[in-house]
């Protein structure tokens, strides 16, 4: 194949891979970006094949040089270090908006979705959401999954919706995230916020602290919430059923291996409050198909006693 075409093609596919790679690191998980990164990777492999074919002679020369061995050693060392994830590497990965502490996995499949979080080798949290009859894979609902502490402050979003306009479709989660951003800023500025004070110890924004409390005498209860909404789904009573909130409380002092998330209600704006707040209300007769979006949501906690 023509040298100039292959070279330019290599450079351009590389550019796409590089940009999506950085985005995948920095931004929260996005199917578009990761999909692009992976598939463009395959194209890149093909083009690199042609590129190698075009440059066989210099390549052979390189392989015979002493740089070959140095390169091999450096690559092997880096691969081992990153794969083993010692603390500095973990910290670096922790900076990623997508990989987070590099400990969670999210998977969408025919039956629904599975989210896994493993803050330590002996602790694995799995959230399995089984989709109900009203869930249409061709037009999936918007949903968010997040963790809150016992002061009801958002700690970490485990799954965020793809749509940009999620304030309208998932108002409760959006509100919680905004509160969290504010609390985090306030905490950074040294202001006492409820999120990090209050009756129960709540001194952290790191989910791992709640799942693996340092002091077993002072467990930090937390809850996992799901907000789900199929925009524009009419029921007999309304043109658009509001989003629904499911939740489960996890008490590390009294752990259960399996817990089902319960439907707790729907969000409604309390305009009289200053500033207006989103509160949850019990479901009423307006809901029909929205109640069928989720069949069940099961939280499984697999934990062995940590080695002393």
């Amino acid at each position, binding site marked *: 194949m023509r040298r100039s075409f292959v070279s330019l093609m290599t450079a351009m596919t590389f550019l796409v891979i590089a940009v999506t790679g950085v985005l995948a690191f920095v931004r929260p998980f996005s199917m578009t970006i990761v999909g692009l990164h992976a598939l463009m990777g395959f194209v890149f492999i093909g083009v690199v094949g042609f590129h190698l074919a075009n440059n066989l002679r210099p390549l052979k020369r390189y392989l015979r040089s002493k740089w070959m061995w140095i390169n091999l050693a450096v690559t092997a060392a880096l691969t081992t270090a990153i794969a083993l994830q010692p603390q500095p590497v973990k910290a670096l990965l922790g900076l990623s908006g997508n990989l987070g502490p590099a400990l969670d996995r999210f998977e969408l499949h025919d039956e629904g979705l599975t989210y896994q979080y493993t803050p330590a080798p002996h602790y694995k949290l799995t959230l399995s959401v089984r989709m109900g009859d009203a869930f249409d894979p061709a037009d999936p609902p918007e949903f968010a999954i997040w963790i809150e502490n016992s002061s*009801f402050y958002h700690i970490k979003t485990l799954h965020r919706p793809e749509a940009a306009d999620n304030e309208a479709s998932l108002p409760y989660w959006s509100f919680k995230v905004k509160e969290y951003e504010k609390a985090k800023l306030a905490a950074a500025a040294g202001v006492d916020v409820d999120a990090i004070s209050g009756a129960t110890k709540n001194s952290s924004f790191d989910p791992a602290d709640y799942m693996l409390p340092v002091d077993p005498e002072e467990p930090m209860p937390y809850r996992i919430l799901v907000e789900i909404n199929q925009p524009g789904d009419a029921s007999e009573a309304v043109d658009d059923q509001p989003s629904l909130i499911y939740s489960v*409380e996890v008490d590390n*002092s009294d752990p259960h291996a399996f817990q089902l998330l*319960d*439907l*707790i*209600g729907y969000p409604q704006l309390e305009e009289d409050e200053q500033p207006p707040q989103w*509160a*949850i*209300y*019990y*479901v*009423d007769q307006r809901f029909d198909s929205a109640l069928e979006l989720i069949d069940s949501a099961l939280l499984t906690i697999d934990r062995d006693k940590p080695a002393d």
Partner: protein
Amino acid sequence: MKPHDAQPDRRNFLQHSLLGTAGAGMALASTSHVTVAAETQGEESPDATITNRVDVLVVGGGTAGTIAAIQAGRAGAKTMLVERGSQLGGTMTTGGVAFPGLFDAWGKQVIAGIGWELVRESVELDGGQLPNFAKVPQRHWQNQVYTNQFLYAILAEEKCHEAGVELAYYEFPQAAKRVADGWQVDCVGFGTQRRILCKQIIDCTGGAEVVGMLGFDRLREEVRQPGSMLFKIGEEHQPGREQVHRLYVHGADSSNSRTVTQANLTGRRSVLAKVRAEKKRLMHLQPETGFRESYRIVGETMVTVNDYTSGRQFDDAISNAFYPVDLHTKTGVRPKPLKPGTVPTIPLGALIPKGSRDLIVAGRCLCSDQLANSGLRVQASCMGMGQAAGVAASLAAQTGTTPMEVPLAEIHKVLREHGAIIPGKA
């Protein structure tokens, strides 16, 4: 003082206390005057003991007893209420736990009736706000109703009066025995001796005092939950709208005058120490320790924590209950919420002392294990029980039977007529 010296006062003690409370408040604010009405109470017996003949005697005018008495009165029974303290409401008012709950569960009201009527009216009269039961509280207890304890106590008296309930404060049973057509209960108070002949007794003393006096079995934990002394230091506050402070009184025991004295002394001493330590003003102090737990009856049916947390629908359920399992210990309290949709019920059998006739209890002394009781003891549940006990006792008195043998359908019918919510039919 010889008993007969005190006669005129004794006759009028009811009106005195009924109007005296309101009068004192008004006198402070203005120059209004109130006059104690002079009406004869009871029948004078030759030995200067007042004798009353009633259908239903309620002992203990606390959270449950007040409602039981009003209900019995409204159901047409001649009712008398004997209370050892100076006002109605018990733990709610004298103890200061003026935030009754829980009338709702999962977006619906599950307890209504006379207790709710009284709570609602006292909040409305006070310009307060009732919780919105459709809204999910972040914690169960946030749907408790902040009530003005002073108003509640007076309104309760008004409702007793309207229902024809005779009130006797500063009195308590000293002896009780079975007689041909029911019970003879001898009560004493300062300057008062009273003999009450009644067909039915409703024991709402919190610790099943009458049940114990009659020799029926009772249960009691070795280590009871602490009591609490409620107080407020700092700035002025609006009673009922703001939470007062409280401190645990461990070992608090409401069994008798000596243990209650001890609990009050301990509580007040601790408050004084706090005031000294914090160098603030003492703005409020309840006159008595609030007791969480003492004796419970051994009933025909025991409500276990499993019955409670599974929301068991008893065949003879007479009222709903709702609250987390809420055991207070030395290390504090960690409430365990009920699973969504769960609404526990209270069976009539748990209010009947085992093997008894013509005797029923209501309130925290119902037959239950300690964990179930930690949830069942809350005020709305006590009120629901009180109302049911009032119906069962008045029907039993009218038909010459015992509460356990009154057809359940009859109890439900009268309860419904008086605005109560029947389990499973809310």
